[in-house]
């Protein structure tokens, strides 16, 4: 499989002090949708902007489509479609004018009308950008990238702040692009977005990749497939070891009196759990089981929730 983006030993230090990216290796294949997942301030934007050639890395190597930014910047610009985090496009231009402007920068752009149609913006083609809703603005931002007819689409937090319907619309756009053999690199701090949209993800925290793989792999490798959450009354809450020894339990976390067990086989664990509760003369006041998610992976790896403030 052809490699679309590769970087090795990527580091970025701001003002000689703040280490935003601390030694990052990535290989993104042609035709895949790759997600950089991590909390705010993890270094996602710095990483993607280095790959986009907008920031110089302090050290490390970047190759995009087999070229480097030092030697082939202009050529690469023709091949990449980029949507930055929070670009506010000119409010006094219409949607169509904005796309005409962006398409004029490329030697071989795709048709503005086709992009308008693909992103369901035909009705708004003659509306001023200042009058668009958040979701429409974000679609327009992606449209300015797609009008380039790019080989790789970069999306930095494409759905942050959008309502669920707008998010789903954007996911569809990304999937459509992927179906035309496009490669996508996106950053997100939404677990569900990464799980549903990305073929592979890298979880980034404090400027480093702490785990990478397909969402299913990560969940399987790092947690059980299932999570059993429960709370009991009538005993000291920090007696974690009793739960860890139950059959099928891979790990135990406590969070504000709530225990969660990562388990591989819930039907083996739950009867044993109930027996243990009875043995301790405690009362079960809450019990749920659910599929493990990337959120659990992140918590497992960092001890923090992804969207903690």
């Amino acid at each position, binding site marked *: 499989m052809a490699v679309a983006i590769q970087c090795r030993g990527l580091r970025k230090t701001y003002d000689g002090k703040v280490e935003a990216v601390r030694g990052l290796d990535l290989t993104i294949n042609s035709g895949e949708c790759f997600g950089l997942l991590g909390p705010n301030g993890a270094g996602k934007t710095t990483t993607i902007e280095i790959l986009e050639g907008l920031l110089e890395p302090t050290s490390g190597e970047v190759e995009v489509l087999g070229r480097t930014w030092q030697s082939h910047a202009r050529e690469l610009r023709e091949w990449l479609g980029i949507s930055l985090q929070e*670009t506010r496009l*000119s409010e006094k231009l219409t949607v169509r004018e904005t796309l005409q402007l962006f398409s004029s*920068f490329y030697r071989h752009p795709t048709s503005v009308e086709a992009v308008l149609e693909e992103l369901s913006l035909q009705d708004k083609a003659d509306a001023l950008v200042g009058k668009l809703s958040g979701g429409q603005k974000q679609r327009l931002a992606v449209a300015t990238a797609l009008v380039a007819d790019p080989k790789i689409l970069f999306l930095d937090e494409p759905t942050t702040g959008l309502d669920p319907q707008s998010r789903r619309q954007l996911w569809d756009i990304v999937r459509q692009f992927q179906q035309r053999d496009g490669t996508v690199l996106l950053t997100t701090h939404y677990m569900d977005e990464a799980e549903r949209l990305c073929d592979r993800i890298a979880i980034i925290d404090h400027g480093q990749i702490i785990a990478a793989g397909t969402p299913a792999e990560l969940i399987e490798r790092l947690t059980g497939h299932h999570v059993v959450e429960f709370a009991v009354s009538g005993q000291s809450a920090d007696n974690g070891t009793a739960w860890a020894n139950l059959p099928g339990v891979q790990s135990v976390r406590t969070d504000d009196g709530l225990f969660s067990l990562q388990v591989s086989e819930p039907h083996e664990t739950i009867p044993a759990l109930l027996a243990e509760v009875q043995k301790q003369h405690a009362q079960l006041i809450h019990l749920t089981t659910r599929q493990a998610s990337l959120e659990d992976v992140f918590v497992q790896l960092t001890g923090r929730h992804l969207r903690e403030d």
Partner: protein
Amino acid sequence: MATIEQPPVISAPEQAVGANGRWAGYLRLLQMRMLELWREPEVIFWVFVFPLLLALGLGIAFRDKPPDVTPIAVVAGPHAQQVVDLLQRSSEHTAIHPDVVAASAALDGFRLGKYALVVTMDDSGVHFRYDPARPESLLARTQVDDALQTAAGRRNPIHTETNASSEPGARYIDFLIPGLLGMNLMNSGMWGIGFALVEMRQRKLLKRFIATPMRRSDFLLALVSSRLVLMIVEVGLLLLFGVLVFHVRVEGALLSILLIGALGAVSFGGIGLLTASRAQKIESVSGLINVVMMPMWIFSGVFFSYERFPRVFLPAIRTLPLTALNDALRSVILQGASLDSQLGRIAILAVWGAVSFVLALRWFRWS
């Protein structure tokens, strides 16, 4: 039968689009910049309407007034009427308005500035009370003395003739219009480029642009070109307004005026670019722009001649870009000077523009 096996044409719309030429980006950037300006009512007001209002207001305020009438007091007495009659007969009678009043009222009025002069006539002759520290008082004494002597039959040893002159070309509005042109070119260059750039930087639009294959030089060129297009309209409107409303006479060639205007627009565009080369916030660039422009508003002879400043400042004042622009515009518009007579000023303006551009491009931040 065989036709069915042909692969479906998927990418028809893409194929219909031709490739973009070298200047496609520049032309679109210029077009969109003009559209944005056109859709910004504030821009239309500040660039086009405001200078006209300013010209109108100042032109009316400082229009040529009829000659001043000097009020004087004639102290009531047996000879008072004689004084008034003599004054009526003199050639200066329109400039002097005598009131016949009692001595005390005359002195009070003089003290309060109501009268410039108190005239008392008795058998011994005419007495003047005047204040040598008040110019109009001095003037009134001379005028009245002269009028009385002449009316009484004095013969002047030398015959003199005077012509009053208030012709177009020497009035305040004639001085003002070229100054306003220069100031307007400075304002719109600094705001139109400096402010616009920082706004785009703050919106991350500059960064978005350089994430495309757009040539950075095309972007800056389009910005400067948009200034030139506006310049023609600005200069044209203000000149036309001066000619139609105030009968300003444009002595120089229109082409020379436009060339100087273009140089002014581009140079101040360069200074605007430099001012905006690093600022991240609209607030900070607004302050910077005002700091740069303020000295020139005051010193560069927009509203009044800079010759009023002490002589030692003049060389420095003359090297300011707006001074050079205003002086060149005045010479060409009011005196019909040729372009080559203005080379010195043109050079000053060009150096300011060129140095600013070079420094701005070196320091410019796209993100």
